[in-house]
């Protein structure tokens, strides 16, 4: 039997805010909607920016990629701040446990030497890539149009510094508590011939003025890199006695699966836009094809470096990852089949 608590019943005058009921009718709104819809100003700006006197402080014109209604895109994860930090607290806690286990069992020292080389030369330099991704995402977080997009981009920016920290902590652990592997990785990033094409690509993405294009270029690059390093090499590690690499890689590949959710929804919204769809698709296709070609070439020496250390077919896997990335954009309707 049920206990019947008596409470004062007061009929609410409205179930939610006007800007939400205007869209969805007067129904209770979610906290994601309350914390997202229309939060960014769109009209009656007071002053032109000193840094862009031809534009407004918020403007759809900071990118070629546009949505007639920015809230036609909503984050499928429905991340507002609280669920976002909760999800990431879990991710980092899980990574922390992994790292604790690897340290406790001395597993980095048991990593086969060749795999140590892969970690050192192929994986750790990517902490700088992640740092660049942080800046590119923050750029979209500031100059994007509409809170649904900029909120995702801002969280992604924080994610990327988090990923850089995951890689750095892995490096410190691998170095037995010292920063030596990080210093070596930085030198590799800055000086090794194998990394220079990739660093050039990254630096050029960072100075792209169109936040939408730089976000797409970064995502294309991510698709290839994450597939190659945290899926392909993860598999190879398991079959060749380098389980500790897999234990680290799982956290980055699961992060990437989460990242895909909002980006894939955004591509769909861009392409389906009643006003800008065709133009968006053309812009995306151009960025995708250029970037795939660039990354294919830029990552080749890195894949070759991996091939010189381990027999995992990394060069072939790079080519497959690039094809797979393109195919994904075809599926999303953003790129035509070759």
């Amino acid at each position, binding site marked *: 039997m049920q206990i019947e608590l008596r409470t004062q019943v007061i009929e609410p005058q409205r179930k939610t805010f006007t800007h939400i009921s205007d869209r969805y009718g007067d129904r209770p709104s979610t906290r994601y909607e309350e914390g997202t819809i229309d939060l960014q100003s769109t009209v009656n700006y007071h002053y032109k920016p000193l840094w862009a006197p031809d534009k407004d402080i918020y403007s759809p014109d900071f990118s070629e990629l546009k949505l007639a209604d920015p809230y036609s895109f909503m984050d499928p994860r429905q991340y507002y701040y*609280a669920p976002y930090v909760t999800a990431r607290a879990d991710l980092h806690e899980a990574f922390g446990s992994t790292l604790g286990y690897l340290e406790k069992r001395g597993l980095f020292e048991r990593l086969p030497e060749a795999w140590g080389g892969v970690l050192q030369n192929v994986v750790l330099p990517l902490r700088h890539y992640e740092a660049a991704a942080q800046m590119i995402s923050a750029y979209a*977080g500031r100059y994007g149009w509409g809170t649904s997009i900029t909120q995702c981009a801002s969280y992604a920016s924080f994610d990327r*510094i988090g990923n850089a920290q995951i890689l750095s902590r892995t490096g410190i652990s691998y170095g037995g508590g010292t920063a030596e592997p990080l210093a070596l990785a930085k030198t590799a990033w800055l000086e090794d011939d194998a990394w220079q094409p990739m660093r050039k690509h990254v630096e050029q993405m960072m100075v792209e003025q169109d936040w939408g294009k730089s976000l797409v270029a970064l995502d294309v690059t991510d698709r290839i890199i994450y597939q190659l390093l945290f899926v392909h090499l993860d598999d190879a590690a398991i079959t060749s006695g380098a389980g500790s690499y897999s234990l680290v890689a799982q956290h980055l590949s699961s992060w990437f699966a989460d990242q895909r959710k909002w980006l894939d929804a955004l591509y769909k919204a861009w392409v389906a836009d009643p006003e800008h769809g065709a133009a968006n698709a053309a812009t995306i296709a151009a960025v995708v094809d250029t970037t795939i070609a660039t990354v294919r070439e830029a990552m080749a020496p890195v894949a070759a470096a991996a091939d010189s250390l381990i027999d995992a077919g990394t060069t072939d896997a790079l080519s497959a990852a690039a094809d797979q990335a393109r195919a994904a954009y075809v599926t999303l309707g953003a790129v035509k089949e070759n």
Partner: protein
Amino acid sequence: MTIAPKAPRKLSMKDRYSALTRDLDWEPSYVSPDELFPQTKFEGIIIHDWSKWEDPFRLTVDAYTKYQAEKDKRLYAVLDGFAQSQGHLSLTDASYLNAMKLFIQGIAPNEYNAHRNFAMLARHLNGGGPRFAALCQCLDEIRHAQTEIHTLANYNKYYGGFHSFLHQHERVWYLSVPKSFFEDALSAGPFEWLISIGFSFEYLLTNLLFVPFMSGASFNGDLPTMTFGFSAQSDESRHMTLGLEAIKFLLEQDERNVPIVQYWLDKWFWRGYRLLALVAQMLDYMLPRKVMSWKEAFELYFEEQMMNGLFQDLAYYGIRPPLHVDKAIQEKEYVSHQAYWILYQFGHAAAFTTSVPTDEHMKWLEEQYPNTFPTYKTLWEKEKKNIENGGRHFIRGLPQLCQVCQIPMGFTEADDPFVQAQRESIFEGERYNFCSDGCQYIFDHEPVKYRQAWLPVHQIYQGNCGGPTLPDVLEWYNLKPGDGGEYLGSMDHQNWLKWHGEADSAEGIDEGDAAYAGKGH
């Protein structure tokens, strides 16, 4: 076989933090540093060595997310419990919520703006240390915007004035005061942002903004807002630390930065202080249960903490207290009375209600302001007679607004409460009006910027606000019956009495919303 793990030679905390943040940076080779960081030169600030930035707190992503997730869990539990138990019924009075209406309309959208522009710093500052600090604040600020909205969303279901806060923030006359303030900072470069918002707003004036609202909540039974306040406190103390580090960093980098920073301090002190007129009137007039007077708050949080503390320290760098601070000190005796009187008279076009202070309230004001309140008391006594004769005072015309702070020109000369202060400057043949020397000073430095201001009154005259008549404009504001005007007899007031079983005592008060219907003279 087991291999004993090597005992790790641990990095120092500082080195470890550096490895996790600023060590990620590198000098670009394939693009120029100016291409990579295009925003950090045009303001004239000179930075020689970004690595000299001291990380004020060593927070990493794992620690940040863990700590913040725990705080949010506790906060949302309180919000849910309060909503479920109809906690709003235990507020001191429905009129208390006027303070919160002002908060959600004026402050929450600007927390959001702060979020967006700290993302700009998280991209554009040259140093990895300050970029990461900015990124943390970027996230904190969206937290504040969202938790404020979530905290107040429950009141929106039962009370007027909350429902269209975003729409109104972009349109309503008194909200152009906070909107133009923040857009002024958003349209500036990254260094001015650090001084305007990072330092002036988040350090110099934060206690005057934040504490009155949160203490007001605590004194008036608003458990959710109070809990939000406590929950935001640790974020705010990080922001204060960042603001202080920012100003010291700029001042230490090059002597030529000192006059630029000094101008920004002069400007943003006065800009912020004028914005706080809204807080001053809230503290002295809107809270049913008083916390402290504006005068007392100003003396404690500004004169004592900032003038006698902070500015003594900054003198070392050649920084003097902001210009016009003497005016603010003089005004502490009367700014709240004048600000509330302005809002009261234009209350028919606002999304909060106003009312003549009760006798008890006036007694408190007299105690707090023995030198000045008697003058204003005469005004209120006269207004009480008007009301007895059936006509609450509303100004039907449109006021002249200050070109800089955008408050209607209703402040007086410091030495004469009957002479309205008015300053004017001519720029390229046009005349511009200001409420004060401080606002005129700012305009004269940047006339090209301030002449662009979207002044609500000018916009109404130009036909950009829904139509030529007052009802047209109010509809364009999306003001609904019960949102504004007089509190007594308003929908909030009537409901409050009904919910508390005191509906009978509401008899004799005008049905509907007298103010909205436009009674008065």
